[in-house]
């Protein structure tokens, strides 16, 4: 009876593994399609406004991410979730998280946070020097071609696909580990039955 249950579990795990592999392949192809779209739009934008206007030369010297991931640990397998909203805003909401060594005078902390909450997320410059969280598209100018906006949309979708792929990968690794443990257990039971001289249980 135990063996039958184990076999049923192995069957389910096999099916799960194959479904996950299929899902991973499908999501990778979707990600590739979004990225191809993005590359094409970047090329169109370069054609419209110039090669150097859409290149690493336009990257600013100050950058804050507006897309991050949050790790959820309340499920069997840790899952990652995309968060939209700058890290600057996150740090303003949770200023106590950034325990900087420069917080020597506790009485001034609150004032510093009120006057200059931005400093929690930055180590240099005063508020006037720091750029607030802005749309990265503005690094390339304020009147940007439509192709650049489309490129941004495509890569945003690619980022979501990336997060989904990481979650699928984690689930795949977890399921594979479970499968291998169950398989090892089944082999141990089979070996034990063989040693005891009992006939092998029917598999059908």
């Amino acid at each position: 009876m135990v063996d039958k249950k184990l076999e049923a579990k192995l069957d389910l795990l096999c099916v799960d593994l194959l479904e996950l592999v299929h899902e991973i392949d499908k999501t990778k192809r979707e990600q590739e399609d979004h990225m191809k779209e993005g590359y094409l739009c970047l090329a169109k934008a370069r054609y419209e406004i110039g090669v150097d206007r859409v290149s690493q030369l336009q990257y600013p010297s100050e950058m804050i991410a507006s897309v991050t991931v949050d790790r959820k640990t309340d499920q069997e397998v840790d899952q990652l979730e995309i968060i939209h909203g700058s890290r600057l805003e996150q740090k303003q909401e949770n200023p106590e998280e950034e325990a900087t060594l420069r917080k020597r005078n506790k009485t001034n902390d609150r004032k510093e946070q009120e006057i200059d909450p931005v400093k929690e997320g930055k180590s240099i410059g005063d508020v006037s020097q720091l750029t607030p969280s802005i749309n990265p598209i503005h690094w390339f100018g304020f009147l940007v071609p439509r192709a650049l906006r489309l490129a941004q949309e495509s890569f945003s979708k690619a980022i979501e696909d990336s997060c989904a792929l990481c979650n699928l990968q984690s689930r795949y690794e977890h399921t594979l580990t479970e499968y291998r443990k169950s398989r090892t257990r089944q082999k141990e039971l089979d070996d034990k039955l063989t040693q005891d001289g009992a006939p092998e249980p029917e598999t059908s």
Partner: protein
Amino acid sequence: MASSRSGKLLAVIGDEDTCTGFLLGGIGELNKHRHPNFMVVEKDTPTNEIEEQLKKFLNRQDIAIILISQSIADVVRHVIDAHVEPIPTILEIPSKDAPYDPSKDSILRRAKGMFSAEDFR
């Protein structure tokens, strides 16, 4: 609720277009030490620089996902294979020059050898 309070970053290692695209998507950041979470790899970028940067990303506590072009991942495969922790997750992505090749993907390659003849006895 069992979840982290602040978001973690996505890092990217790829050619200029790949980095520009993902940075447009909003993942780019320079941390308080002015270290970026991206690396633009040119044709003449030495392998040891890519290795070093990947190792730096792997050691950073504020990065949850590392996106790396598949063609670049092939060059630093030994570093990727040696990484077994779940976080940060290394994800191989296609690039303009190297479209998605399932035969080279690390997960799908392992899936090929998932079952042996003995499994079906």
